[in-house]
């Protein structure tokens, strides 16, 4: 993957008011790779993700998708930029007043010229992918937490964007569903060359899907490790990082 990176983060600093959360992060995400962001709870993974999608403005530094900055691009160009990625928020963020089917149809309706029949078929297929076809007409408030998460993934994929940002997609899912989700991510990344930026804690999932990981540190607010997870587990000189990867020791082998 020597080609040009699809996402470039340059010296990005994030703060909430006076509280420093991320300090001058610099990294790149290559086109088509599955990029995993790791770190302890509360170290700023969701914050990083929200900066990468331009939801928050960084205190300093810049984030680019190809050559367009998500920080400064405005107007019609920004709309085009935003269309290039899909996002699944940690809490799901489904629209509570619409059924699951309508949630997924909404972006299709707003941004494409697909007819109703086509939209609903696509939405149903996406729901089928995450195993929720039977719940197409349910309201988000009437399904479980894990199901919301799956529905949110289906919605993020509605427009088949180039980049998918997923905040803890498999947290709260049973191992089998989580595993199927990993398969899906790999398949999409291979066949459609979709770039994934995933926040996850699940070690088996990390070993299975990650092409590259970065690990954030809550104390220094910086990246403490970057690279292939299996390599980091064996060779990283930071003890905490090795510990993290060894926690559920050996799980890597059966994936």
């Amino acid at each position, binding site marked *: 993957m020597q080609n040009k990176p699809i996402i470039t983060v340059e010296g990005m600093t994030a703060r909430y008011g006076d509280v420093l959360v991320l300090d001058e992060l610099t990294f790149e995400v290559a086109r088509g790779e599955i990029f995993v962001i790791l770190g302890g709870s509360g170290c700023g993974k969701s914050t990083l993700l929200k900066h990468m999608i331009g939801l928050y403005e960084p205190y300093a530094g810049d984030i680019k998708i190809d050559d367009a900055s998500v920080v400064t691009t405005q107007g019609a160009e920004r709309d085009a930029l935003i269309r290039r990625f899909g996002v699944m928020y940690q809490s799901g963020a489904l629209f*509570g*007043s619409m059924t699951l089917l309508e949630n997924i149809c909404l972006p*299709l309706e707003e*941004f*494409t*010229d*697909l*007819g109703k*029949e*086509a939209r609903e*078929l*696509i939405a*149903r*297929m*996406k*729901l*089928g*992918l995450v*195993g929720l*076809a*039977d719940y*197409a*007409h349910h*309201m*988000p*408030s*009437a399904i479980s937490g894990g199901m919301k998460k799956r529905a949110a993934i289906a919605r993020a*994929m*509605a*427009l*088949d964007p180039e980049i998918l940002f997923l905040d803890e997609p498999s947290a709260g899912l049973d191992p089998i569903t989580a595993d199927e989700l990993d398969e*899906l991510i790999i*398949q999409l990344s*291979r*066949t*459609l060359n979709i770039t994934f930026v995933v926040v996850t804690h699940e070690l088996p999932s990390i070993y299975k899907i990650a092409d590259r990981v970065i690990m954030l540190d809550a104390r220094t607010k910086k990246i403490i490790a970057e690279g292939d997870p299996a390599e980091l587990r064996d060779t990283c000189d930071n003890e905490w990082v090795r510990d993290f990867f060894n926690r559920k020791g050996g799980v890597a082998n059966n994936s």
Partner: protein
Amino acid sequence: MRKQRHSADATFSGDTTGGRVQLTLSGRLGVETVGRLWPDVRRVLEAKGIQSLALDASGVEYCDGAGMALFVYVRRAAARLGVELSIGGLKDDFAGMLDLYPEATFEEQPPETKGVRDFIEEVGMVFAETVCGWRDHVAFLGELTVAMFKTLLHPAGLRIKDFLSVAEASGARALPIIGMLGFLIGLIMAFQGAVLMAQFGAEIYIADFVGMSITRELGPLITAIIVAGRTGSAFAAELGTMKVNEEIDAFTTMGLDPVRFLVVPRVLAATLMTPLLAIFANLFGMAGGAVVMRGLGFPLVTYVNRVVAVVSAVDFMGGLVKALVFGLLISTAGCLCGLRTGEGASAVGNSATRAVVSSIVMIVIADGLFAVAFYFLGI
């Protein structure tokens, strides 16, 4: 019959010769392009007398979920017509993708049978709901009374910080709007009065008119309406959001009484603040009257003397008692609606609406009862 369509860089052509349909898809099948091809595909597939379907996909360079949907659409059409479908030339990657969508995983479920309830049943349901609603309300008031008494016996158990912050939000922060509305109402009343009284040369009685109607009726009433809109709805929305986020459940499972923690400080603060706000509404209302009287050429002191002579302490206190009761009604309705919130964001909105509407209805009913009671008491 031959159809061909180019769409950005995706193309479709359908060839129907003697019941044998040959479809050709090529190029980039993506969300941007599929929408335009779809109607053409449908038209070809809806033709009569189709005996076989063949789909040539060797020219497909890219195919995302929308493209897959088009394949699935053709696949379904074949199944419906009961003919064999052969898909040729689809790249292995895409064929693998298509395998991700076995028909069984997203079959249409039978449309929801909502079932039209007949009218009698509907009326019965509404009646039952209303009765249960009243039971709920009474039970809640009982619960609240118990919690209030406990708080009175052990004042240390009152969440004083919550109490103060609610008092600030529902009391102090409402002052500007209450003052402004009170002033305007006083102004309008005096003005209306002036038009009428001028016919009899009895402008001085504007002071009686404004003083009495504001202190006895309008001051407490506008205060209550503002409090219902600002505070009652806020209570319902706050508690409703907490309900949706399972915070109320968390209180309960920790063995803490949500009524004591959440409702008592709110009801107490709002109930005590409403009469204080009504005092302000009264004062500003009289000030509004004073402006009109000054405009008519009366010195301020005449107006003040007249008001003081006419409006007795009993009138004034009667208004404040009303305001106290209104405050109690509003805050309990707000909290009750909040605690009874259903699921989801729209439920929170519904609770807030319900809180305001039921508060205002109760205020008007209570006001009527007060009027009757004051009449018989000779106040």
